[in-house]
């Protein structure tokens, strides 16, 4: 593992029965970068992330988080991770402030109620402290979820399709928050379907398809590298080559279920 890597994934393979969801995937995330994992539906993005989070046991490979082997020392690895799952849900009976209290506790963060209210004020949700999570709008839920993912100031934040279902305003706001996480010196690993999002916020991206990484680079380099490929030109719609054109050329036009 290189010194400036916060996450190293080497030869990762994940299977569900006979189905190989992730096959020999390797990549790393460096300190202070936003790394995007892009791929069509069922490409293996969430399975890769789940293996890093410790939610499933890979069949092969090694995962190192902040110097800890995530397979043999999962709790140490998880202590360095902040996670926002694809569909995060909290106990519907608890108020927002209580959910924050719960996660501050499970991450071992000694935070008073005043400090937690301060956090809610920062994300403009102080008025919603005594609301239940389910009563918040999608954008508000994302803000709470992100604040919980970063409550312990983790070195690496994992975001699984964080902007799905958000309106453009909320999406932009979330991008700013993700960039703010990077500015505080933390790394971010996110999965997304949105090429616009990948271009806007990611320093580097990996395209994953059929469980395999097929390209890793910066968004701009990836566009430049494939600009003259006939497949890319063929799928280009407006003359200007975009990351989406490269993505479709690399992963195919067929719709995935």
């Amino acid at each position, binding site marked *: 593992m290189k010194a400036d890597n916060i996450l190293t994934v080497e030869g990762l393979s994940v299977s569900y029965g006979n189905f190989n969801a992730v096959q020999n995937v390797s990549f790393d995330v460096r300190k202070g970068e936003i790394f995007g994992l892009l791929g069509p539906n069922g490409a293996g993005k969430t399975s890769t992330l789940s293996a890093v989070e410790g939610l499933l046991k890979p069949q092969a490979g090694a995962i190192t988080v902040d110097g800890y082997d995530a397979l043999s020392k999962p709790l140490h690895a998880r202590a360095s991770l902040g996670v926002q799952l694809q569909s995060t849900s909290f106990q519907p009976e608890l108020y927002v402030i209580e959910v924050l209290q719960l996660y501050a*506790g*499970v991450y*071992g963060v000694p935070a008073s109620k005043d400090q937690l209210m301060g956090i809610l004020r920062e994300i403009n949700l102080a008025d919603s402290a005594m609301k239940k999570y389910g009563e918040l709008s999608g954008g508000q839920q994302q803000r709470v979820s992100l604040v919980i993912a970063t409550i*312990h100031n983790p070195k690496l934040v994992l975001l699984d399709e964080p902007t799905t279902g958000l309106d453009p305003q909320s999406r932009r706001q979330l991008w700013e928050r993700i960039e703010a996480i990077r500015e505080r010196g933390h790394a971010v690993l996110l999965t997304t379907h949105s090429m616009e999002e990948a271009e806007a916020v990611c320093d580097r991206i990996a395209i994953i398809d059929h469980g395999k990484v097929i390209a890793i680079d910066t968004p701009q380099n990836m566009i430049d590298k494939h600009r003259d490929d006939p497949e890319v030109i063929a799928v280009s719609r407006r003359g200007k080559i975009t990351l989406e054109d490269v993505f479709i050329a690399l992963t195919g036009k067929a719709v995935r279920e």
Partner: protein
Amino acid sequence: METSSIPQTSTVLKTLLRADFTTQWRNRRAVILTLIVPVIILMTWKPLIKITGGPFVLSNSIVLGLIATGLMGYSNSIARDRDKGIFQRLRVAPISAWSIMTSRILVQLTMIVILTTAVFVIGNSYDQVTLTAGGYIITYFTAIVGGTVYLSLGQMIVGRIKNPETVNATVRLVYFLFIMGGMLGELLVVQDPKYKMLGDIIKWSPYGTVRMILAAGMDPAKWNNDASMALLATIGYAAICAFLGIKWFKWNTK
């Protein structure tokens, strides 16, 4: 607020317990519903006390409360939280899986103590059934032991079935079977020598053994060989169901 070390187990458990007890408190209407059947039994079976004795009525009442707590309370909450991804969110935190479950089980054990206390209070004030100090203490113990049978049976159901609606329907069906086969069976069949085999099945079922240890615990002087065998059977049922429930259990529904 920087930390990347593993939080202390005591801090984690305290935090989880606070959240789980708060959740339970906010669901108090559901809790009250689990107490209704035991209370109805205490009230409607009052005339039976002269014939069968206080411990028979109280033990039936507690057993049904234990079944409702273990099956309907525990299984449904676990199935719902698993389906909503609440467990997955907790599991990506630096805490062990056993601490999540320990907190849940401690809440249910507290419910068992509350249920048993409620039955004692109503049994005493309405039915005038009073036990010895030893009887009360042993009954708390047997209620907890008996409660683990239904908690582990609930764990087994939630381990085998993933869909929360199906879990809910299944536990209601099992609850109904326990009422019909256990409580009514004990009243109508066990006493009748014509149905000895059926009576034995009911007597040594998870309903019958728990009821037997509860009744025997309420009157320690009458604790006999059957009660000891029932205690062993109860522990056996709990161990088997817990083993299978843990083995089958998946933290997500995918």
